[in-house]
């Protein structure tokens, strides 16, 4: 599903590579934690999957597509198959829960009938039934993140990328978030989650890929956050 082959990424004006000869394979339906200290290259890894950045060398395949050969014109179509969740939720403050989720479908031109059908389903999936008409500022952090997950998942992507989704949320609420991510993963969606949260990684017992200074230092199935901790 995601295939990195010897990928190196050096940002302009920086000597040290953000990713240094990284090779990794993520299969369909896998759940992968991406761990490592700040600046270790986790976000770069996710941005490369979305083709928001281009690697300096190496090849990246996502959903069977060679990103180097993917024309800019087709990048939006790639992104429709990838859902994204962030630490800061990125909801639209002037739209309610339903509208925030529906927005993701409206802007890719889905028919209204389809939107009316699937949005309530996915709102229920993330556990926000009955709150469709709340505004984001009326929701807790955990609930806002559920809206963001609903928006990321509403188009049934093949891959869900989560960049520290529990970063702004207390540990008790985080468990609920992880349950939703697990539920999404069980529908067959590949989930890649970058995180600092050792407790969550340890409790989930999923594959762990650890980055340090842009290099993969550990790739372990059913791993924990780190031996040193």
């Amino acid at each position, binding site marked *: 599903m995601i295939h990195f082959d010897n990928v190196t990424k050096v940002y302009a004006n920086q000597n040290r590579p953000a990713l240094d000869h990284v090779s990794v394979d993520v299969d369909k339906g896998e759940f992968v934690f991406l761990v490592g200290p700040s600046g270790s290259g986790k976000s770069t890894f996710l941005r490369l999957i*979305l083709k928001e950045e281009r690697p300096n060398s190496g090849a990246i395949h996502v959903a069977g597509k060679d990103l180097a050969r993917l024309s800019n*014109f087709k990048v939006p179509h790639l992104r429709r198959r990838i*859902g994204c969740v962030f630490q800061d939720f*990125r909801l*639209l403050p002037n739209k309610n829960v339903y509208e925030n989720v529906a*927005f993701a479908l*409206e*802007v*890719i031109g889905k028919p209204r009938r389809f939107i009316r059908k699937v949005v309530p389903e996915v709102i229920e999936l993330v556990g926000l039934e009955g709150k469709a008409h709340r505004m984001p500022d009326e929701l807790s952090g955990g609930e806002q993140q559920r809206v963001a997950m609903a928006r990321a998942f509403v*188009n049934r992507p093949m891959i869900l990328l989560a960049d520290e989704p529990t970063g702004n949320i207390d540990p008790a609420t985080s468990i609920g978030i992880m349950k939703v991510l697990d539920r999404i993963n069980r529908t067959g969606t590949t989930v890649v989650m970058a995180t600092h949260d050792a407790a969550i990684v340890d409790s989930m017992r999923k594959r762990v890929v650890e980055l340090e200074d842009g290099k993969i230092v550990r790739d372990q199935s059913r791993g924990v956050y780190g031996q040193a901790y």
Partner: protein
Amino acid sequence: MRANFIFSEVWIGLRRNLTMTIAVVITVAVGMAMLGVGLMINAQVGLMKGYWGDKIEVSVFLCSKGSAIPACNGKAITQAQIKALETHIDGVPGVKEVFFENQATAWQNFQEAYASNKALLTATKVEDMPQSFRIKVDDPNNYQSVIQAIQGQPGVSQVTDQKQLVGPFFEMLDNLAIYATGVAIVLVLAAALLIGNTVRLSAFNRRRETGIMRLVGASNLYIQLPFIMEGVIAGLIGGVLAAVILIVTKVMLFEELGRFFGGATAQLGWDAVAQTITFTMIIGVVICILASFVTLRRYLRV
């Protein structure tokens, strides 16, 4: 493509930077109006030149008794001199037609021309009118040689060419057209920059929305269209205002001009005005699209 979604986005964008939008509308309106006026003046000058080209003649005024012109020495022209002068004029190269205007006809024309001025008409007698030869010339632009050949002949008091009268006026109109076009170019530039700024503000105001649109895989067209439409709508409103200005200008200015300098045949028609309006509108909208597009490339990474 969901049109109502795009239009609601456009509406939000226009409302959020209302002052900028108004600035764009005004600049486009004035710029396009100036461009249109320049074009209309050009067309009008062309019309009037054609009209006057046929009409203009060289007038050779003949000495009458007590004439103050030095060339006459206060003596009236003799019949023999008139005959000699006519043969001379016929021989001048470039002369197409000559006819003699006696005092009676001159007086009649004078009466028609100044029909409204009763005092002047009663004070002027037939004997006061000068006799003259009226000459039509082959090439309307070549009066000078004809005038030179006739000037100074015995019994000739004065040679005038009507082109000398209307020439400076045409020249002024030409300059006006150049001036209007120049102002239009500057304003079009200002409009382009303003639109660029408006679009940039819009893009900044809606960076959240566009960021999410990018993320969920909205196509470039879908992301950029609302911004471009904003520019187009501002440009169209400006164009409509410019059209109103042009119509008013046609009625207030060009119809008056036409009345004084050539009558109905030298009147700028509505079809010409419609053409000008269409042309300026297209230019306005195209500039808006271009300005939006160029700015988006810089400020809305897709």
